[in-house]
């Protein structure tokens, strides 16, 4: 069974648990949680990830800054990023995708939609 490593970046423990809960339904999934952008960068430096799922509004370092930093990092720039956020306006979506995110899911999340997007990205990697 192939192993899929996910990095869930969320300041809300409720959302972290909910996203992890959904991702656990993908066979071979391994989930690492980070509470903000800085925490995520630390974890990225020690482990390889197949997908990063990040919120936008977080303390210390927000999700958009994280996306921008990952895309400018020669080691991690190819990791697919999914933004999961309460910011559902079109301009927010465009901004997130322009920075280099692969998908943009507005909250409240639908598990089926999240899994669909994740599976599409994993399928594309294969």
């Amino acid at each position, binding site marked *: 069974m192939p192993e899929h490593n996910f990095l869930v970046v969320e300041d809300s423990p*409720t*959302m972290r*648990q*909910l996203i992890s809960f959904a991702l656990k339904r993908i066979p071979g999934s391994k989930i690492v949680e980070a509470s903000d952008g800085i925490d995520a960068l630390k974890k990225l430096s020690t482990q390889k990830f197949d997908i990063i799922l990040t919120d936008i509004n977080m303390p210390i370092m927000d999700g958009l800054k994280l996306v921008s930093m990952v895309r400018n990092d020669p080691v991690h720039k190819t990791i697919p990023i999914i933004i999961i956020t*309460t910011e*559902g*306006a079109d301009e927010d979506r465009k901004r997130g995708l322009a920075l280099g995110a692969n998908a943009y899911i*507005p909250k*409240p999340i*639908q598990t089926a939609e999240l899994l669909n997007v994740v599976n599409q990205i994993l399928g594309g990697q294969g």
Partner: protein
Amino acid sequence: MDKESASISKKVEEFLQVFKKGEEFTHELLKENEKLRYRVAQFEEVSKFSDRDGTYKIHSLEDRIKFLEEENKTLVDRYREVEEENKDFANRYVEVEAENNNLANLYVASYQLHSTLDFSESLKIILEIVMNLIGAEEFSIMMLDEKTNELTIVAQEGMGQEPRPSVKLGEGTIGAAAKRGEAFYREGDTTDLRGVDYLHPLTVIPLKIKEHVIGVIVIYKLLVQKQAFSNVDYELFTMLAGHAATALFSSKLYSQSERKLTTIQSFLDLLKEK
């Protein structure tokens, strides 16, 4: 004379020979005729038999076609039934999947609500649930002061810094819902759900421990991408009404008892010193 009689006997002999040949030919013809009659009789017999066999075969094939047609019809009907069953299973699967996801939301919300005994953390978790799981943009949590019978905002999201006045129990939409102990949902179409009116909120969820109301969750505005409340939202509201109330009440009691314990401990330490 002799010459004449010899010629006559020669002619008689020739005639007899011709007659014999005619007799032989007639015999041959009769034999041939017999043979032909026999062959005709044989053909007639074969022909009669062939007709019977052909008819039998046609009947047999017609029966087989009928049987196969019936079998085909049965199979087509069964196929349709299986297809219907399949559709039904697919719909059931989607329903079960949705139910599963709803239960996951409820489980996570409930798990988080009871994960702390810190009052401010409990408030934060309720705010997270209402924002992330329900999709509210502007909302508040109000607690009831039993001495003054007033509902005061203890936590809010998206409402700015402007101070909001307390609400008397029984007054206005919020006070009335709290007094009745029943959830209030503003009537109107789904597009109306995003309007902001702090006096007439979209939803008021009384936080109850059994029948005792300790506060309310008030939602004024939904996120731009949230079109309407879904079934799981109502389930979450019901869950919040009970679990959030218990979480807030127990964490408040715990904080108070912690403070009292610290005071008593300090008092005991003082006595020991003396």
